[in-house]
């Protein structure tokens, strides 16, 4: 009997990363831009996505959405009201979505008929940061009711995101939300991050958000 050290050097999330990489390649062949929305529970992901889907539809842009939750299909039903194809992913208690779940739920969709694919992640600012879902753009949402220092408390997810969207701006005054402090905190953990301010209720900032998506699509040459 002998004791030996074997060098391994293997990423613990290699399996997920590999599935995500293949998924991203596949989605690109259909000209899709895929957006992963992450935030804490209650930051307004569903309302934000609802308005986004409705506006895209009015503009004549085809979109689809996958929505992850630990349980219930409430969010999928809310999103389906927009007339856009929506599927619920129940994680059965798991705190995040994984690339395989996305891949499985796309199986019977005609991906060539969509321009945008949205993934509403499970409301959680910790675990989703580790899992690549094959997305092109990771968007982190922060609502004005959550406090300006959230980026400092959850630096991982803010650092791993490409765009930050501040939601519920219609409540900013009532919450005495300090926008400048929030922006400074976001940029402290992710220098140069693009930050949008929106209200799904009033529609403020939503045009800029859609313009930003269109820009991302062009920049990544994800054009059908």
């Amino acid at each position: 009997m002998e004791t030996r050290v074997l060098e391994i050097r293997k990423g613990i999330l290699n399996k997920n990363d590999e599935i995500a990489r293949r998924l991203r390649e596949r989605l690109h062949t259909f000209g899709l831009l895929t957006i992963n929305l992450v935030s804490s529970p209650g930051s307004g992901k569903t309302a934000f996505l609802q308005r986004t889907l409705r506006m895209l539809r009015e503009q004549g842009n085809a979109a689809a959405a996958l929505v992850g939750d630990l349980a219930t299909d409430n969010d999928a039903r809310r999103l389906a009201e927009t007339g856009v194809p929506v599927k619920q992913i129940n994680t059965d208690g798991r705190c995040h979505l994984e690339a395989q779940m996305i891949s499985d739920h796309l199986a019977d969709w005609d991906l060539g008929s969509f321009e945008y694919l949205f993934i509403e992640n499970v409301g959680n600012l910790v675990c989703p940061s580790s899992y690549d879902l094959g997305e092109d753009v990771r968007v982190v949402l922060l609502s004005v009711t959550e406090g300006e220092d959230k980026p400092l408390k959850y630096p991982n997810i803010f650092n791993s995101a490409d765009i930050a969207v501040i939601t519920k701006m219609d409540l900013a005054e009532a919450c005495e939300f300090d926008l400048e402090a929030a922006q400074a905190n976001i940029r402290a953990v992710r220098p140069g991050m693009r930050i949008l301010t929106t209200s799904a209720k009033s529609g403020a900032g939503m045009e800029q958000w859609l313009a930003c998506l269109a820009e991302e699509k062009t920049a990544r040459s994800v054009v059908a």
Partner: protein
Amino acid sequence: MHELSIAYSVVEIATESAKAAGATRVREVHVRLGALSGIVRGALEFSYEIACAGTMLEGSSLVVRELPVVVYCAACDREVELPSVQYFCCPVCDTPSGDLRQGRELDVEAIEVDLPGDEHGNAGIGDSQGNTEQE
């Protein structure tokens, strides 16, 4: 809290490599944990014991190497270590930098295993992945 599923992946990776090398038991698993890996060390250590139960890793120890965030500072033209993940600015000149060079690591570096020796007392060495070995 996804440390338990991470711990199961660690056990899976270690088991695959140990079996490929013909090992009978895993004594130690070395992992690297970047400050931005999203993993809480204590929670991983706690989950590790649970994940090892009933496997060839049972009773093994997890050796965690924590890695700080390193960014490239354009103003200083060098890589600098950040004292905090809350402030992505060069600790020397205070220039903001998001050019990450280290900090997202989440991997199994190495395992220490028991190998049955042959009749000459030599260990059955080598794993199927062609990885090099260290004494």
